[in-house]
C-alpha cells in the first residue's frame, strides 16, 4: 500500500517535471539577466537564480536528470554486480578469490572518496552533458562491489541447492543453468540492490555536485542547485531557493519507502 502511494507520488512528480520542462517557454539554460534573483512572479513561478534562469524549469530538469541518471547507473551497477557475483560463484576457487579480493579492495576505501578521486581525474574539456553522463557512469562503475558480494553469497547458496545438482545431472551447462534458473531465483536479491542504489546514487551526485565535482553548469543537477544555498544574497531574496533541497528530500524519502518495503518482502 505504502509502496503504491510512493510510486503514485513519484510518478506525479515526474509527470509534473516533464510538463514543466516541455511547456515552459524558458529553457533550463536560458538567462534573463534583467530578471536575475527575482522572487516568485507570474512569469517565473518560483523565481529565478542569480543568472536569471527560471527556477521551476531548472528544478524540474534536475529531478529528471538526477532520477533518470541514477536509475540508469543503478541498472548498470546491478548488472555488473550480477555478472561479477555469478562469475565468482560458478568459477573455480582461485578466480572467485581474485574477484572478491578486487571487490574488497574497492570496499576498503570510503565510497565518496573513491568517487571523488575517479570523477576528478576525468578530462576538464568535456561538455556539460558529457560530464553528466560521465558522472553517472563513474557512479555505476564504482557502485558494484557491495552488490556483487551480496549476489555472490546468494548464488553460492543456490549452487549447492538440490535442484541445481539435478540440473547438472540432467546435462544442463553452467551457462544454461545460470541464465534459465539461477538469475530468476536471484531476482528477489537483484531488485532490492537496484532500489538501494538509486537513492544512494542521487545522494552521491548531490554530494559530488556540492564539492564542485558533479554535473557542470549549465545542466541543472541536485548538486549544483544545493550550491545555490551558499549565496546569501539569493537566500535573502526568496525562500524558493530551498525548493530543490525540499524536493530532493521528498524524492529520497519516496525511494526509501520502496527500498524498505522491498527489503522486508
Amino acid at each position, binding site marked *: 500500500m505504502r509502496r503504491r502511494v510512493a510510486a503514485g507520488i513519484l510518478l506525479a512528480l515526474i509527470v509534473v517535471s516533464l510538463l514543466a520542462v516541455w511547456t515552459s517557454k524558458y529553457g533550463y539554460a536560458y538567462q534573463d539577466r534583467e530578471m536575475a534573483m527575482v522572487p516568485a512572479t507570474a512569469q517565473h513561478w518560483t523565481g529565478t537564480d542569480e543568472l536569471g534562469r527560471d527556477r521551476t524549469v531548472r528544478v524540474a530538469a534536475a529531478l529528471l536528470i538526477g532520477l533518470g541518471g541514477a536509475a540508469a547507473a543503478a541498472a548498470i551497477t546491478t548488472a555488473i554486480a550480477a555478472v561479477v557475483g555469478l562469475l565468482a560463484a560458478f568459477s573455480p576457487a582461485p578466480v572467485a578469490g581474485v574477484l572478491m*579480493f578486487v571487490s574488497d*579492495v574497492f570496499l*576498503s*576505501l*570510503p*565510497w*565518496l*572518496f573513491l568517487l*571523488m*578521486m*575517479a570523477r*576528478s*581525474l*576525468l*578530462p*576538464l*574539456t568535456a561538455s556539460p552533458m558529457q560530464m553528466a553522463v560521465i558522472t553517472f557512469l563513474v557512479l555505476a562503475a564504482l557502485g558494484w562491489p557491495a552488490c556483487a558480494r551480496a549476489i555472490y553469497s546468494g548464488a553460492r547458496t543456490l549452487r549447492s541447492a538440490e535442484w541445481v545438482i539435478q540440473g547438472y545431472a540432467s546435462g544442463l551447462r553452467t551457462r544454461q543453468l545460470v541464465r534459465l534458473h539461477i538469475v530468476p531465483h536471484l531476482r528477489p536479491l537483484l531488485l532490492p540492490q537496484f532500489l538501494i542504489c538509486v*537513492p544512494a546514487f542521487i*545522494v552521491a551526485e*548531490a*554530494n559530488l*555536485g*556540492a*564539492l*564542485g*565535482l558533479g554535473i557542470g553548469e549549465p545542466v541543472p543537477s*541536485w*548538486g549544483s542547485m*544545493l550550491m545555490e*544555498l*551558499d549565496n546569501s544574497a539569493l*537566500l535573502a531574496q526568496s525562500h524558493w531557493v530551498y525548493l530543490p*533541497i525540499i524536493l*530532493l*528530500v521528498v524524492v*529520497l*524519502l519516496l525511494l*526509501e519507502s520502496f527500498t524498505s518495503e522491498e527489503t522486508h518482502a
Partner: protein
Amino acid sequence: MLCVAAGTILLVRFAPGFFADEREMDAKYAATARNEMQAAGTQTLSEIAVREVKGWVHGDFGESRQYEVPVTELIAPRIQVSAWLLLRGIFYGWLLALCAALPVSAVRKGGALWGLPFTLLLAMPTAALATACILAEMGGPVLVLALLIAAREFKFLRSALRGTWSSPHMLQGRAQGLPLQALIRVHILPGVAPQLYALATLSVVTALGALVPIEVIFNVPGVGQLAWAAVMNRDLPVLVAVSLLMAFAIGVAGMLSGQKQTLEAAA
C-alpha cells in the same frame, strides 16, 4: 594496503584527465602547469611507482605537487584534527542512536513515527545537512557527523534491539521485575554486542566518507579537506597517502571489530 596504493596509482596514471591541470585555465599559471604536465606525461608507471615507494622508504611519502612540501608535513597536523572530529562524531552519533533506539525498539506501535526524524536525516545528503547547519547558524562539523552516524545506525540498532526485547529470557526478566537499567546493562547490550561491533566498523567507513564534504563545507583543516584539494589538483603523492591512511583506518576498525567478536565468542 599495497593493493590500494597500486590501485590509486593506476587509477590516477591512466585517468584521461591525468594530463590536464586546472591551473591551465589561469593565464598566470598556465605555462608552469603545461610544463609540469609535459614532464609528468613522459613518466612511465614503474617510474611513478618507484618514486612513490622511495617516498615511503624515506618516510615522507614523497613531495606534494601542489604545495611542494613533503606529504607527511601536510598530513601529520591534519590527522589529529580529523581523528578528533571522527571520534567525537562517532561517539555522539552512537549515543544519539542508542538513546533513541532503546525506547523506540521497546514500543509496539508508532515505531515508524518515532523513527521519522532519522529517516528524514537519512534522506539528506551530507553536503545539504552541513549547508543547512551553516544557514541555521547552529551546530558544526561534529553535529553533522553525529547526526549522519545516528541516522545510519538507528535502523540497525532498532531492529537488533527489537529482537532482544522479545526474547524469552528478557520476558522472564521483566516478569520477575528486574529493573530496566539492569535489563539493559546485563541482558540487552551484551546480547546485541556482536552486531554492535560489526556496526562500529560500518560507522568508521560512513564517517570517513562523510569527512570530505563536512571538512570542505565547514572549512576544517583536516585530512578530508586535504584529500579534496589533492583531488582537485591531481596531487598523486597526497592522494596515495590519504588513500593508504583511509584503507588503514578501515582495516584497523574491521580487525578490532573482528577481534572483539572472536573474544566475545570465546568467552
